Every structure is written in C-alpha cells, then in structure tokens.
C-alpha cells in the first residue's frame, strides 16, 4: 500500500486494517507517535491526516492511503528549526515524562491552524482531547498562547 508520510511517498506491505499507529512505529521507523490506550481515549497517538488531528491507534492504515500523514518527526520545517509550537513547549518547560507530548503538540498545531488566536476556552476544548498523566496542562495552556503569538509575529505557521 502507498502512503505519504511527512511529505515522502512510502510503500508498506501490511493488511489494510492494521492501525496506522503501528505502521508508523514499526514499518516506517517513526516511534515518536506513542501508544497510550489503543481506544481513542488518550490522544498520545495523535497525528495529522490531511491537516486534521487523528488518533492513529484506531485509524486503519487503509483509510489514509493517498492522504498526507504528518507525525511529530515531520513537524519541524527543517532539522535546524523547530515548529513554533515545539519551541514554545521548550520555553514553558512543558514536558515532564514527555510521553504524551507528541500527541499534545500535534493537537495544538492543528488547533492553531484552525484558530490562530485561541481563547482559553478554545484551548480547553481542543486540548482536552489529550491526556497527560504528569499534569502538564497549565504549561500547555501557556505554551499554546505563546506559540500563537510567535506564529503571528513570525508571519505564520510554515508547516
């Protein structure tokens, strides 16, 4: 089956009902996307499919054939530059164990593309899809706001 992942066309030999999560992690060597619950409850496995956040643990790979899949590894515009959301995460010291953060960041990037200047309520609504056992929510909230400011000042999200 053919896929486009992080801008690159790839081919994988797996049944169509294989969860995208494991295809990314095991077939494409992209382990940044994490397994947390396997049932669309935690958001740790969030990736972008055609720009929209999707839980890869319950997305059959057959559903994303010919669509654009972006993972945490493909978010930065180039190896030397982080995405403004990633940068904001570092500046707010948001990650603790870090395990949920790839999913958090993917959700936040999608939020900011839809709502470049989100209110607290917008952030709560979007980011409540993602669980964090370490309780980094206050920092994530701040980081989303500061990323929004950075994107605005920097002339937009290049992703």
């Amino acid at each position: 089956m053919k896929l486009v992942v992080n801008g690159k066309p790839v081919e994988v030999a797996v049944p169509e009902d294989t969860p995208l999560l494991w295809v990314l992690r095991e077939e494409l060597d992209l382990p940044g996307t994490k397994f947390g619950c396997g049932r669309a409850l935690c958001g740790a496995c969030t990736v972008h499919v055609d720009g929209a956040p999707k839980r890869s643990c319950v997305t059959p790979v057959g559903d994303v054939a010919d669509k654009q899949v972006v993972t945490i590894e493909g978010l930065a515009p180039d190896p030397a530059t982080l995405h403004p959301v990633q940068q904001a995460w570092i500046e707010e010291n948001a990650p603790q164990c870090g395990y949920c953060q790839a999913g958090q960041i993917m959700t936040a990037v999608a939020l900011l593309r839809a709502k470049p200047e989100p209110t607290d309520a917008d952030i709560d609504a979007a980011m409540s899809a993602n669980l964090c056992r370490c309780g980094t929510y206050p920092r994530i909230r701040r980081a989303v706001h500061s990323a929004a400011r950075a994107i605005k000042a920097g002339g937009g999200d290049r992703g």
Partner: protein
Amino acid sequence: MVEPHPSRRGFLGGVAAGGALLSLAVTFGCGGARERMVKHAESTGELAPNMYITVLPDGRVRLTVNKAEMGQGVGTGYATLVAEELGVPLERIDVAWADSRPEYRTSFFMHQTGGSTSTKEAYVPLRRAAAAAREMLVGAAAATWKVPAAECTVKDGVVAHAASARSLGFGALTKQAAHQPVPARPRLKKRAEYTVIGKAGRRVDARAKVDGSARYGIDVVVPDMVHAYVIHGPQYGAAPKTFDAEAARKRPGVIDVLAFDFGVAVVAHRYWQALAAARDVTVTWKKGTVAGLDTEAMRRAMRDYKKAGEGAGEHGDVDRAMSRAHRKIEAVYEAPYLAHATMEPQNCTVAVRGKRAEVWAPCQSPTLVQAFVADAIGGSRDDVLVHTTLLGGGFGRRFFPDFATQCARIAKRVKKPVKMIWSRESDMTQAFYRPQLAVMMRGALSPAGALTGFGAHVIGQSISFASRDAIGAVMPGIPNAMKHVITESIAAMLSTNTVPDMFATEGLKNTPYKVPNLRIAFTPVNTELPVASWRSVGNSVNAFAAEGFLDELAHAAGADPIAFRRALLPARSREVRVMDAVADLAKWGRPVAPGIGRGFARHTAFESEVAEIADVELVDGRIVVRRVYCAVDCGVVINPDIVRAQIESAVIFGLSAALDQQITLVDGVVQQSNYDTFPLLRMFEAPEIHVTILDSDADPTGVGEPGLPPIAPAVANAVFALTKVRLRRMPLQPAFDEAKRGAS
C-alpha cells in the same frame, strides 16, 4: 541531549569490563583506579575521575546519572549541580543513564529512584565529584603554564590565567588533568556563590521530548528482536487452563503462542501482527489469585472493624483523654485501591543468552530488575545487565518488575530478544495498586476547644508486606537460597506487626502536631492482590484522613482551620511559616466570591513541607476546583521551575485520584480497564495553580511527591465550607453524589 536508549556497550560488556573508574566519595584516588583513569585518558582523551563525570576532548561533559528520568527532571537537576561546580554551561552537559552495574547501587544498596530522594542524595556528593574534576583541570592548566593554581579561574568550560592572559578549554586539558591528584575534599561553592543552582533553567531533555526523538522503553529496538503481546485473564492473576491458538499460528508473522501461568503470549515478528493474531486465540482460565475478592464487601468489613490495632506510635493515654473530653469526635476516612496508569503502558525488552540476560526497561530500579530476571531465567543477578530507558511515567509503579519477569520468561522460551508491550487493559487490570484503606480517626476537645487527644488507626494491606520479595531480592551478599528464608521471615514479622510497617502509618506517626495524648495504630489486612507505592505512598491517604479530620475538629472547636493548626505547632516552625505563606498567597481570611468554597490542608512528606488552599465551586453537582494555592519548603532549590512543575503535577495527579479514580473488584475481577473507566483530569478541569517556594538554606528535600498529600483534604474541606457536606471517602465526587442523594 539525553542519550537515547540501548547501550553503547556490547552484550554484558559493561559488567565484564568492570566499568567506571572510581566510585564516588569512597575511593577517590586509590591505586589501581588511578592508573586506569590515566590509561583511559591517554587512549581516549576522556577525563573520567569518577563514575559520574566524563570530560570529553571536545569540551563537552557526559554525566552518567544513576536515577530514572520519569518526568521529575532528575537529569536536569543533576546536570545543574554539575554545571555549577564544574564550571560548564548546562547546554554542554549530555546526560546518559547508568546501567545496573554494582557501583551504581548508591541508594539503599540499590540503583533505584523513589521516595523523592534523588536530589537530597546527590546534593553534596555530585557537587563534590564535579568540583574534584574542576580542580584537576585547573591543576593541569596551572602546571602547563607554571603558575599557581590559585591564580587560575574557571568559567564556561575554560580555565584562564588573567595575569598572563592565557586560557585553555577543558577539552584541551583532559589528558594532563588525569595525571593530577584526585582531591578528596575539593572546595565547594557557598550558596551565595551559586550562579546556576536556583535559576529556572530549561530542562535538558525538553528538545528530545518535543521533536519525537526521545526514546522510551516501548521504543527499544535491538537486533533480531521479536514482539510479544500478552493475553491476561479476566480475573486478577488467572492462569490459562486451555488455549486454542491454531488459527492464530497461521496468521502472518506469528512465531509462537505460548502459555505461562500469567497468561498467553503471542509472539510475532511485528507487534501489530501479534495484536491481530491475539484476536484468534481462545483461552479458558483457571480461578484467579484473588477470586472472590469484592472490594465493596472488604470496605464494609474494614469500616466496621472494632478492635484497637497494633500501636505504631503512642504517648499519653488517648482512651482516657476521650473519656474525659468535653467533646469527642470520631470518624472513618476511606480510600480505594488505585492504579498508577502511567501514560506509557508497562513494557520490557529482554535478550536471554544461557544464564545471562540483557534487559532494556523503563524501570525505577534496575537492581530489582536484575534480581527478578535472574530468578526468571535461573541465573544470578550480576549476570543480568539492565539498561534503564526513559520512563513514560513511574509514580511508584515501575519499582515492581513483574513486566521484566514476564518478558524474561517469554524470551527464554522464544530464544530471541523479545519486546513485550502490555495493552492498556492489562496495565490496569493486572497491576500493582495503592491499597484500599480505612483510617479510624478520633479526637478529644477541651471546653476551650484545645485538642487533648488524637488517635488514628489505619486498616488495610501493607505495602511493606507486599514488597517482601523485593526486600529479599536486593539484600547484599546473601545467597539466593537464604533470601527466600529471609523474605518469609520478614513477611511473617510484618503480617503480625512485629516489625512496624514503614508505609502504612507514614504521615501520621511522624505528625508534627503536638497533642498531649496520641495513638497511631495499624491493622494489616491480607489479600493476594499486590499493592505498591503510589506517588507519596502512605501519605496520600493518611494526609486525607488527618487533615480532613483536623478540619472537622477546628469547626467543632469554632476555630479558624489555620489558627487551630497553629495552636498545635511550635511557634515559628517551618510548618507554621509554610502555612502562613500559603495563607498570604491566597489572602486567606478575606471573603471569597459567592459560590466558592475554600479549604486548607498541609502535610510534611519526604522531609518537605507543603500547604495548599483549594477554591472549589459546584457546577451542576460537579465538584470543580478553580484554583489551588501552594506553598512549599523543600530546602535549597536546584531549579525553581522544576519545583513548580512538580507541585503542579502532584496537584493534578492528586486531584484525579481525589475526585474520580478508584479500582474496584467484583469476584476478583478489576472493574476498570482503560481511561474511560479510570479517568484522568483533562485540561478543561485542571485548576489554576499558584506556587510559592520558601527561601531556605537547608539541604534539598523531596519535590516529586510532597505536593500530592494536601490536595485531597484541601478539596474535601473546601466542599464542606461550601455545602456543609463532609466528605470522608475518596473518590470525592461519587461520595458527594451519594451524600446529596441521601439528603434529598
């Protein structure tokens, strides 16, 4: 910056080579080690004066940390201590994780992370190790320039001699420095001289944790590795009776389907293949190890228990104080079993070669993993090499290496390296749990409202008893056969309470409140359900009972809750200062907005002092915590932003448990299985959290756990302030719903 997973050393190479050169603070400068240090420097250009610090020829520093990074920021904290005393910028330090070699067993004979002890343990020794390296580098520069060492200065990894305008980077000095004597007592900076410690630096692991490059146990890849998915039984600890795997074996990629007493392992070339094939396996199960266990029946039995319990701490005569009291108050506080629900499900990777094994595990104690894997494969623990990966959360769960035992047994049979990943459901239903507890409280008040007697009797499973295998496993220098005997006698003493239980009454038996008559007691309850340390351990329940009950007593005495406590604490004590700090922060005593209830609680845990005030509102019957104010005294602060983050983390972790979480069993079957039935707070429910850190000159104390104990009682006390409903049972939301139903 953090070195990712598997080892740079070969299979068991580290053990054979004898590893690091000098053991910290013990063997500085002793003969053979010194020669090795010089040789190592000559051949590699690396200065490795002790087992923690290696200065590389490019001027970077490798810091080997013998702790597990599970989010608490230990890598950053340790790097900060080294940056300060060595004189290099934090950014030039690369953190690597120590493997299981014996010299890294510096914490209670173990390489272990728990009890909020990491910073406290390292504060002096690690700075000394860094200062020693710095003095050697300075000595080397001074010798090269033929100037007195005292005239040289160190800054940003460069030694300079101002008078002659010469300077050399650390990287250029490593070989000569190895010939310098290792100073036994290097000079340490005074607190006033600190330029890195106490500043809110960035986490050293942040970059890897935002760009997808951080590697956890679940990400381990080793050559030839295969994958295992384990089907566990519905009842806790059930072993398979029969299984039919014919269809599964025909699935693509499946290598084998194997039965063990803990479940059925489906092994395949890929994990997704094992997952898919597992659907085709049918298993019938024997009775589980706790068949018949019903937590609701157990709860009733515990709360109706009438006997006095074994004393864990006592002075005066509480019975007499109660009989003479102007007012006496009694209440039962209750807490359920809880899972840790680390975001990264339990997993492990093991390669077995004969009687040797190599393990990659997100674990809190590689020493325990060594012992358990050795048992599983019939080897000895020093033939097991364990690499600790990053942990996707620990909270006490990853101390208990059942995952390593299971993976080692699978790997032994498969004869290939195996990575085993549990489903979330296995992680939650076949776990170790915080014990379900009842705490019987009693208090005697004088006519003036003074507390004259205070009693607490904890009833529940003993974590020490449940940890007996672990205690036996790590005792130094004792042959295997003896260990089991010792383990059994420890168990016997614990179950009869001959040995006082370490965890059951913590936070009660060491209460700072001065009461003339006091009795703290414990009655162990035995079930085969394994219990474990869970972030802040006994404190997490005992603070709920003690601080909730003190609020009851304060109200009964007609006193302000903070003033009531102040009367029980030494004037100007640390406890009082922290209480006053949080009262200031929250403007305690001023009227709060309508619809808001405010509650206070404080607790001492892991030698740190935390006081919290919660502002609570009711929204359609839901307890909503709007704001939490926290004051903390944890001694000298290494990184204030990490202290804040840990307090925020503990508050949110504690709130999830306080409001909603419980593990219940019906006929030995755990009723919760994933985040739908065992909910975590989500962002929209997370309160604003304000933290103030008290300035202190005392050596650092715990930070990862002490923020947790006060939150549940602060919220319960706030609910009382708002509604006059007294909540004495966690989780609070269902208890509140029940109280409302009862009242209407």
